């Protein structure tokens, strides 16, 4: 289901700016920020049914900022971001979720987390059977289910 609404250049700029404020790039972890071109392209390409809420969130952000978010002084930008996060409601939550879901499927990010770059099916995962002697104390303890009359 695709909403026939697209983002304006200003909205795309604000989306990139707020995404970088949510998840900045990190040299320590060798990961891009959420403002990375590939991640931004993924966000735009997969907005789909979330488009309307994301547009509403960006409109709200624009009202709070009063100018392109990137043009604000850092302190003012942080203040706007805090207001947006705390009072943005469902629309802001949708925007943040879309950023996170695209960020945490990027190959570079998953690689940094030590996760395999593949769908779960068909390989699956191996699960250790575990030490079932852990259950011995439960078996040894007295106890019975309540009986019906």
């Amino acid at each position: 289901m695709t909403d026939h609404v697209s983002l304006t250049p200003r909205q795309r700029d604000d989306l990139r700016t707020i995404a970088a404020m949510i998840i900045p790039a990190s040299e320590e972890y060798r990961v891009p920020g959420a403002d990375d071109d590939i991640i931004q392209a993924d966000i735009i390409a997969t907005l789909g049914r979330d488009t309307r809420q994301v547009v509403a969130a960006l409109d709200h952000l624009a009202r709070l900022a009063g100018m392109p978010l990137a043009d604000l002084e850092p302190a003012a930008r942080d203040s706007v971001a805090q207001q947006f996060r705390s009072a943005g409601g469902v629309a802001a939550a949708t925007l943040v979720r879309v950023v996170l879901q695209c960020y945490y499927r990027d190959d570079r990010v998953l690689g940094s987390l030590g996760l395999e770059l593949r769908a779960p099916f068909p390989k699956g995962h191996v699960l250790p059977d575990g030490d079932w002697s852990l259950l011995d104390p439960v078996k040894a303890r007295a106890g019975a289910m309540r009986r019906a009359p």
Partner: protein
Amino acid sequence: MKDPVDVLIIGAGASGAAVAWSLAETKMHILCLEQGGWMNPAEYPSTGRDWEAKFYGEWSSSPNVRGRPEDYPINDDNSPIKVVNYNAVGGSTVMYTAHWPRLHPADFKVKTLDGVADDWPIDYDALTPFFEENDLMMGTSGLSGDPLSPLTHPPMPQQPLGLSGAIIGKAMNELSWHWWPSDTTVATMDYEGRARCINLGHCTPACAQGAKSSTDITYWPHAVRAGVELRTHCRVREITTDENGMASGVVYYDKDGVEQFQPAHVVIIACNGVGTPRLLLNSASSRFPNGLANSSGLVGKNLMFHPYAQIYGYVKEPTDSNRAPPTCLWSKEWYDTDLSRGFVRGYGVQFVRGAGPVFEAVVSEQKGILPWGEDHHRVFRKLNGHRIGFSAICEDLPEEHNRVTLDPVLKDSHGIPAPKIDYTISENSRKMMEHALARGREFLETAGATDICVNSPIPWGGWHLLGTARMGTDPERSVVNEWGRTHDVKNLFIVDGSIFVTSGGVNPTSTIQALALYIADQMKQRLANLFD
């Protein structure tokens, strides 16, 4: 006009599949109408890299979010717990956790034992053979011998303990609290044409491997081979009645949206606790002005959800995260009534193994424990792959003000009035939830967990839809009799969760299907005088 069928079943989910399969041996002409279609496992989320993102869209557990053509909208604005379900061949067994406890014997005698609600008109023993038959048909795994649960005989061994299970077991042992490997419908070995579980991850939204049992791959192939006709993408609008007050058939919309009438000698409803009262209320007529089979006025009332009290935290050791079925262990430590706790009845616990990275990021950000900015990466690495959880399934007692009615405005894509939910959590349930959260916190702290978070109730936790067409011997206090026939219409039966009298504190699907098989058996035994 179409030829009449002997038996018409509405709904191809957990109970519809079971009753269809059981009745097939009669060689009657049995037709099932299902509003959804057959599932295609090649399209299941775990086949793609974006498997987690799909949970927020077309694979959401909420029909209101999902909005597939097969779904109908539900107005649940006036409920802190939102309805979740799935509409397809297999119904909500396509999208469930596969956790497989049964109601306990004491759950059928709540009034006698605890002086609340009502006793069921049948007891646990009446259902025992059908629990066993159903476990073989669905294919269960587990470990027989749990001292605090009814005796079961799962045909397959329990799921592996895994990393999370070991952490959970050690903490519960330290507290001397009961825990046990859950019975589940996850195949741990190849079984009846199903491949064994390979730990695709969060199997709730359908299993591409086919290891998780859903009725589209268990009961339905057998039922169809035995001659049952299953007509998909057919949404029933109403059940019609004749001049004698007997059900005469149904009006439905076919896959092309064309209105059809299908006559039938017997009608069986299997639409569960929201769909069933919706259909009965939409079947009002001059003879049945308050809805069909509603002389008691109880159709739609006594809705029981099971409020979930969930608490979770993060341990230092790695957990199974998304690399295993989500649930593997349960506890019945607080299942039975102990009035010193401040409430009557009790709750079961299902432990949670962990979460995938997208879910972890989204939920932790919303909870405020995952920051924006420079510290995001460090904190995410501390959280991701380290979660364990404790979810209490609290017994919800029947209250008439918790109900399903017809929304005066909202309609589905065929113009059929949609259901409206009015529901509040009782004081008894709130005390139970507080007790569970306190025990869960003790458990998490014993396991060494930090950053503890609470979801109570789980808002999107309305999986269990029970009680809205309750069973009983008194026509003034119940909708169906002790073998599932409506008191008012002698060829109309209900076999789903709506006939529950009380809810117990466990996931209900095993009991729903045992009831459906029991009712089918009763019908077969009474074929000569079914309408007397």
